[in-house]
């Protein structure tokens, strides 16, 4: 697997996709960017599993979970080689196809200014932007890693007679609602399990992608991820924000929508 990964960039130059503002923010809390790092993983799914069955589609779930954790591992190995202590601003691109699941991560490795490299077990990954990372550090918290969970569940079809009987009624479709609940609960539980494994006390900026997929209308997918955090010191530091009123004119363009 190591052969798939790029050789380490020279340590003298810094590459990062952070904006100048974000770099300034990082420096203000004593951190610096090191290198742009990435991790990609593609897992195959057997095509026949999508449409008929009951309960969870374990093949798809496993592929998704594996793709996610392998991509994170590779990203972190890349970051360790670059001498980073963590990766921030990770862009997550994931796609589920009939035949495979793909997860690709790109982010910027960072470390406390002039810190020595650390081992791969202590490194963190986070999809927080450089500015959010700085804010979190300033408030006395630290990111621990990316928590993720997913679940694919079959949504049972209704019988023709039921469809006809319900045609003109206002009624809840409990079979679909239940499938949605199963997918959601399983995925969220997995998210929490990975968060607890990282010894986190919270997960912020949890993102959710849910619903049936275009190629499998009777399967519900639920995928979720977020950054695991915990208090670094003993107490949360208050930020005491001040109210400001920008006096720039809002740029409003006149727009006449045609009446239809």
């Amino acid at each position, binding site marked *: 697997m190591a052969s798939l990964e790029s050789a380490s960039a020279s340590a003298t130059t810094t590459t990062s996709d952070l904006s100048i503002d974000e770099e300034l923010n990082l420096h203000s809390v004593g951190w610096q960017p090191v290198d742009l790092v990435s991790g990609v993983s593609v897992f195959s799914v057997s095509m026949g599993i999508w449409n008929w069955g009951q309960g969870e589609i374990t093949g798809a779930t496993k592929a998704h979970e594996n793709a996610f954790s392998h991509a994170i591992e590779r990203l972190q190995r890349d970051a360790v080689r670059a001498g980073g202590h963590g990766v921030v601003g990770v862009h997550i691109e994931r796609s589920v196809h009939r035949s495979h699941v793909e997860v690709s991560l790109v982010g910027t490795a960072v470390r406390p200014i002039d810190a020595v490299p650390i081992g791969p077990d202590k490194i963190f990954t986070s999809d*927080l932007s450089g500015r*959010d*990372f700085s*804010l*979190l550090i300033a*408030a006395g918290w630290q990111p621990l890693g990316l928590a993720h969970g997913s679940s694919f569940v079959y*949504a049972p079809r*209704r019988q023709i007679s039921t*469809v006809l009987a*319900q*045609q*003109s*009624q*206002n*009624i*809840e*479709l*409990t079979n*679909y*609602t*239940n499938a*949605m*609940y*199963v997918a*959601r*609960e399983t995925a*969220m*539980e997995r*998210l*929490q*399990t990975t*968060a*607890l494994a990282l010894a986190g*006390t*919270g*997960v*912020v*900026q*949890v*993102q*959710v992608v849910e*619903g*049936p997929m275009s190629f499998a*209308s*009777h399967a519900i997918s639920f995928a979720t991820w*977020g950054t695991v955090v915990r208090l670094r010191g003993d107490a*949360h530091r*208050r*930020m*005491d*924000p*001040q*109210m*400001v*009123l*920008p*006096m*720039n004119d809002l*740029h409003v363009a006149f727009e006449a929508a045609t009446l*239809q």
Partner: protein
Amino acid sequence: MSDESNELARTTGHRLEELEKGLFTSDLSVNEFLLIKEVGYHPLGFVMGSSIYHTGIQTRKWGQSQELTKLTEAMYNARELAMTRMEDEAAQLGADGVVGVRLDVNYYEWGKDAAEFIAVGTAVKAEDGVSRLNKLGKPFTSDLSGQDFWTLLQTGYAPQGLVMGTCVYHIAHRGLAQAIQSTGQNLELPNFTQALYEARELAMTRMQDEATQLGASGIVGVRLEEKTHQWGSHTIEFLSLGTAVTKTSNDVTLAKPITIISLDN
């Protein structure tokens, strides 16, 4: 209906138990998370409710403006189901309220007229241990963002609940003679204007009734949405949504905002 909603709530047991051990999950951004801590609240968990609902059929008269009560009921009940399930989860966590609530309707390929109604938000609890439950003894709900929540509390108001009103309305088509007559003229179309007014009023009034039930003194952040969903051009849903608030403290010293000019665009 409440039996069903309890049953679904029971399947969430394990996830919520884990949250009670001290891990929190939240879809708040870092900004919002820090601002909520700033006003003395701690997030407890990402709470959700959803319902996949089949809306019935109602015949419309081509030339008559009228409310389609069956569709109104469907849109209201389905949202109410999702909201109640979300509130149940929050109550189970011992939350004082839910902030950043989002209500969505998603249409999928499960069949015509079936839609997923979903409510998500972050359950929060006051760190000082004083209960902030609303007048009905339930956790308050609010669609305010973390930023707006912080600002609202600065003014001495507290949210009581997310209130909504909806009205699905069929707007009459114009007769051919009418259409020909008005061709080439500048003129108001009173039947259209009247219909839109009536539908909007109905939705707003229903929202205000909900706020009155909560003993609220006002509704902030009201949004009025007009959607045709999948009903074709002359049937419109008017949905009004806002956060009902009450005044909780009178001695408020509002910080004077510092005026700034930002040098970037």
